[in-house]
């Protein structure tokens, strides 16, 4: 049981939908990421998904690719991201934090993900790790971390069953065939697939990829237990960072949170 279990149980008890917000560690700077994370929580975000920058993020569209590039150019490393999380935890020991990234960076930095220090995080989403295996297959020995698995529109029933058996925390339903940030959501297909998934797993299902507006979030949350907002937020952060008018981001998150709760 960690913060993620607590938060998911709480949402269920309240019969409330969850809002997950993604941002890239170190974009535009580590200090800003810390500020934004606290701001997100105050704006009604339930779970934070912190992107760990990688040189070759194959599942990302141009918006998040550029954010990874900016973060790496800033000198963001796994160890600096961890330091940032330690600072965050000084003021917030409740909001679940999930790291999202690629197998290679997690494998190379596994020492951060084991032992007592790793207690500041609650789960991992490893985009290029097949759902039937988990972070343990990358040599990361930590049973208390959730391995959040993804299911796509192309996942067949046999794989769905295998992935659901292995899943913990929540299941991340990928809304479309494509990289992050692409447009056009087919809500009919999304709804159909999420409802079908619910007959395979008892875990909460979160819908992510391509959610931009409050209306998108509402439509997705009609069948899903929560939504993930990624590229749209990363783009907003990029737009707002020269003038530091992050209020615009918080207002947006607030309106989404209110709408889906």
């Amino acid at each position, binding site marked *: 049981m960690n913060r993620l279990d607590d938060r998911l149980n709480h949402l269920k008890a309240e019969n409330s939908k969850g809002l997950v917000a993604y941002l890239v560690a170190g974009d535009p700077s580590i200090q800003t990421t810390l500020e934004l994370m606290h701001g997100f929580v105050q704006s009604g975000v339930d779970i934070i998904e912190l992107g760990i920058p*990688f040189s070759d993020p194959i*599942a990302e569209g141009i918006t998040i690719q550029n954010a990874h590039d900016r973060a790496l150019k800033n000198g963001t490393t796994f*160890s600096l991201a961890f330091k940032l999380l330690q600072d965050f935890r000084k003021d917030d020991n409740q909001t679940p934090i999930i790291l999202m990234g690629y*197998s*290679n960076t997690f494998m190379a930095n596994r020492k951060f993900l084991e032992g007592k220090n790793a207690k500041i995080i609650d789960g991992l989403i490893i985009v*290029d790790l*097949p759902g039937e295996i988990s972070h343990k297959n990358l040599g990361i020995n930590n049973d208390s971390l959730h391995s959040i698995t993804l299911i796509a529109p192309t996942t067949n029933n046999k794989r769905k069953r295998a992935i659901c058996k292995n899943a913990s925390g929540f299941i991340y339903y990928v809304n479309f065939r*494509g990289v992050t940030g692409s447009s056009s959501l087919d809500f009919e297909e999304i709804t159909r697939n999420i409802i079908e998934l619910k007959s395979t797993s008892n875990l909460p299902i979160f819908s992510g990829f391509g959610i931009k507006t409050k209306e998108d979030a509402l439509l997705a949350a009609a069948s899903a237990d929560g939504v993930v907002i990624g590229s749209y937020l990363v783009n907003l952060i990029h737009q707002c960072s020269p003038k530091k008018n992050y209020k615009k981001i918080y207002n947006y998150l607030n309106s989404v949170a209110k709408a889906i709760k």
Partner: protein
Amino acid sequence: MSKIELPNKDGFFGNYGGKFVPETLMKALTELESEYNKLKTSTAFQKQIDKDYAEFVGRPSPLYFAERLTKKYKGPKIWLKREDLNHTGAHKINNTIGQIILAKKMGKKRIIAETGAGQHGVATATVAARLGLECHIYMGAEDVDRQSLNVYRIKLLGASVHPVHSGTATLKDALNEAIRDWVTNVEDTYYIIGSVTGPHPYPMIVRDFNSIVGRELKIQAKHHFGKLPNAIIACVGGGSNAMGIFYPFIQNKQVNLYGIEADGRKLEKNKHSATLTKGSPGILHGALSYLIQDKKGQVLPTHSISAGLDYPGVGPEHSYLKDIGRVNYFPVNDEAVLKAFHEVSELEGIIPALETAHAFAALEKISKSYSVKDNIVVNVSGRGDKDISTVAKLEGISLE
């Protein structure tokens, strides 16, 4: 070494390989694997490939005795396996001929591929043209510049070239972009990977199609000198020409195998592409294999005089063969490569690709370990026409 067939059912060669891709692609990989396993044993498929190899590619490629090179090194007899004589000018066509049949069988309408030197792009555009399939080639912007002849060839063949500006703008980034295209268009698109890299089943499929080279060599060696060669030398980028010529000899332990990597600039420590010699295990483009990366798990920029070797990864089976000690891998630098490029041109009347020139550059060192009674084979993976302007530029010669 055991006779166990590799990869195993999960796509691993020992510790290396696997399918490290976004979930959206898993279905496509499973379908590809099952289609391939079905076709592999079909005699109709084998017949079609044999016919294409003979009548379109011009196989078998000759095994040629390099008399003047042999004289020069005063040691073993040096033989050349002439993949440069294949249609389109390199070994890459062996793979695309096979994969396009798979694509067709799977009902795919759209073909994508990455390319570094442009040889795989040309070989893919060629087979797509023959079947009238839409074809898109991703190529790093830097490679578009240094391999402009091949870019134009690809366009003449009716395919589109998409320059990739992200990251280091070379082969690695072309692969990233091709994978992103595939994730987006997975239902109607077939991705023809150009080397023994990528997620399972690609390393196996590309190896199998290229192993025609080693199978022919076995027969030709018997014919020309009555026994197996003592050594085989091939350059290693992703590793497809090397895997193709090595594979049929893996169990023949008396045959020494040498894989030659790109050491890049002699005096600049981090300007190389010698993945197996200087890298460490990591995950890129769907497979766990040796990788040129920093301690924090970020992939590092590479350098090679040849675009086709300028890649931070390597096929997982090579990582396995390195660890078990079956293949001896070592690097040669750009300077030695240029010297070999000229030497082979002048001594044998064969202008090799810069990639191939890496294998020739290793002759000096390797031939010392063999006697005049021995036979060693160099895999001439491709011809050098595409590199003429690069070499001229490096040597300050204007071709305008």
